[in-house]
């Protein structure tokens, strides 16, 4: 009996201590503005979540080191509050309310469409701005007035990719994309484009890039259809493994890489650049030809190690925090989401390209940032730039 009492006592002590500790954190400072983030910090997508957070943390550190932002007459510093949602929409909804009501966040970042959809149900009602890092077109279709979509639209890639590969290798493509939603959407668009150009799809064999223990059987099946070109798409490292498996099984054709995979990371895994011959993909964000990009890449390397290269998640989030900070300065408020969003377009034009990576040209009507990515391909052992056309 005593054991039970003791256990109950211990448990309640632990719980109340936790409660006290948790309470200690909240407590606002008028000269600090909280930026919220809800994303995966555990589970299979944790790495992705961490990358987005790293970008934000670097940006906030840089802004605060420079004295913060000037809103009206006040010098305001930024603070990041990050909550784990395990990639689950309902957790995002809970976190968003917590960030808004407990931490006073006006801008909440989330790097997955499910979380965005969940927040869209109430963000206008509860008055906060969603910073959505997702390429899902439906996010903007809803015309939510308090939403900004950060990453570029992938619709521009398939056509130039396809044309280049067809020209160099042939018209038969085998598809081994991921099974996640982004890969599916990308693949659907790619298939349409490829066939529209007179190409033929000889095999389609999607695999789960995050869970699969061995890609080799999926690759073997795709290659058995004797394709000229292989289409792959998912996170960089598994993508690299698939390319490696294909080369090991004797595949010599071209490889089209979805923009989620980063060429520089693929290179790190493959080691031998010859395996990359004939690969086409999006130019790494870290190779964006601006001063700002170079600067951020350097400071990232300083922070995380010389062999680490910031992914586009890092760079886009770095840029986005600066963008929102600028918009707050322009709007002269830190707690009116509508006013802040109204200034995003102006802010994007005022971001100094020597400090900020990438280049943003403005905000589209439906709330997406406009950026202009580029594509490259490995030809005879060298990277060659491919022209992307914008209609």
């Amino acid at each position, binding site marked *: 009996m005593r054991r039970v009492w003791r256990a109950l006592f211990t448990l309640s002590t632990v719980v109340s201590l936790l409660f006290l500790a948790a309470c200690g954190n909240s407590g606002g400072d008028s000269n600090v503005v909280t930026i919220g983030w809800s994303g995966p910090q555990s589970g299979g997508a944790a790495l992705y979540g961490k990358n987005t957070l790293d970008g934000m943390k670097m940006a906030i550190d840089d802004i605060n080191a420079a004295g913060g932002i000037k809103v009206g007459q006040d010098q305001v510093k930024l603070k990041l509050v990050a909550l784990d949602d395990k990639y689950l929409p309902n957790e995002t*909804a809970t976190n968003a309310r917590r960030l808004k009501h407990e931490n006073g966040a006006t801008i909440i970042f989330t790097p997955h469409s499910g979380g965005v959809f969940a927040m869209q149900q109430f963000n206008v009602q509860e008055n906060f701005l969603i910073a959505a890092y997702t390429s899902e077109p439906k996010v903007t279709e809803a015309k939510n007035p308090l939403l900004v979509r950060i990453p570029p639209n992938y619709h521009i890639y398939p056509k130039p990719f396809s044309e280049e590969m067809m020209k160099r290798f042939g018209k038969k493509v085998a598809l081994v994309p991921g099974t996640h939603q982004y890969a599916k959407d990308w693949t659907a668009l790619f298939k349409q484009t490829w066939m529209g150009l007179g190409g033929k799809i000889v095999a389609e064999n999607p695999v789960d890039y995050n869970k699969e223990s061995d890609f080799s059987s999926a690759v073997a099946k795709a290659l058995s259809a004797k394709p000229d070109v292989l289409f792959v798409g998912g996170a960089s490292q598994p993508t690299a493994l698939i390319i490696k498996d294909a080369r090991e099984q004797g595949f010599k054709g071209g490889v089209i890489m979805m923009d989620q995979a980063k060429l520089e990371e693929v290179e790190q895994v493959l080691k031998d650049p010859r395996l990359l011959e004939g690969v086409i993909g999006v130019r790494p964000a870290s190779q964006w030809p601006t001063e700002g990009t170079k600067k951020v890449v350097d400071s990232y390397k300083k922070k995380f190690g010389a062999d680490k290269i910031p992914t586009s998640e890092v760079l886009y989030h770095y840029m986005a925090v600066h963008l929102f900070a600028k918009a707050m300065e322009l709007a002269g408020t830190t707690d009116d989401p509508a006013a802040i969003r109204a200034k995003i377009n102006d802010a994007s034009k005022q971001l100094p390209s020597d400090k900020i990576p990438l280049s943003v040209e403005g905000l589209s009507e439906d709330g997406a940032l406009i950026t202009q990515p580029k594509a490259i391909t490995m030809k005879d052992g060298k990277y060659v730039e491919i022209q992307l056309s914008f209609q």
Partner: protein
Amino acid sequence: MRFVPGSKWVVAALFFVALAIPLLTDNSYYLNMLIMVFIWSIAVSGMNIIAGYAGQLSLAHAGFFGIGAYTLGLLMVKAQMSFLVSLAVSVVLTGMVGAVVGMISLRLKGHYFAIFSLCMGVILSLVIEKWESLTEGVRGLLGIPVPKIGSVEFSTLTSQYYLILFFFVLAMFVNRQIIHSLVGRTFISIRNSEELAESLGIHAMKSKMLAFVYSTVLAGLAGALYAGYLRFLGPEIASIEHAFEMLLYLLVGGIGTLWGPVVGTALVMTLMQWLQSWQDYRMIIFGPILVLIVMFLPHGIMGAFAQLKKNQPSVLPDTTDDKNRGIERGVNDRRLAGGESDA
């Protein structure tokens, strides 16, 4: 009433507090947390019926939660049916799927049933994820309309709160009625000894089926309410991690007690929220806490209360009785089993 914190007056008082909460605070975070606690409590109490009372540990209940949620979502989005009709259909459909799954799986005993149901859960979640033409797959189901009953629209958080509180109270009422009835006692008799129950004329399979189907209905109801509340669905809600989470709520609260599921859900969810401040350390802290809880409070919180009150071991099921499978158990297990033949 036998359970201390579940005594009539406490329950009544808590009920009135629950009714008054939206009047006392407009903090939507708290309301949202309570709504989530209600929803998951319903689902966990379903798991409790089959695992805690009928003694068959099911890990498929996240799958049934998913079925309930998707049925409601799909009916409202794709068939434009009204909220109440969709809710009814999703509950019935979950029960029907539950009946089919039960028929196959309840023939198995002990750990076999547990792991088989785990696999069933995985299948249900994979089906939801892969059947894209119906469920939209990993993209998720968008645009579930605001629940409406007659002319009342549940668009605000407060109105949703009352809607879900209503179903929560209803579910707990039905649970109470069942548990303290001949039907509930029948479940318990099967948990304690299927052999004895059968020799007393109880059709064990039939009763287990009833318990299983009812428990899936509760999971389905919870899922449907979740869909109506969040108005967006992704296949993750049916994932096996959720089944583990539900089991955890159940065990912490006290398996085989009426209020255990509610106490466990509320406590663990709150604990998880508090641990958010520790960020990366959250699970590093939570994992050992879990181990300590099962070591020192093996009957869960409500079980411990019942024990204090009755000053004797509480009714604790060992849902995985090896004797069913003819395996000798360890030395002291026999003592726990309380009596043995001295042949």
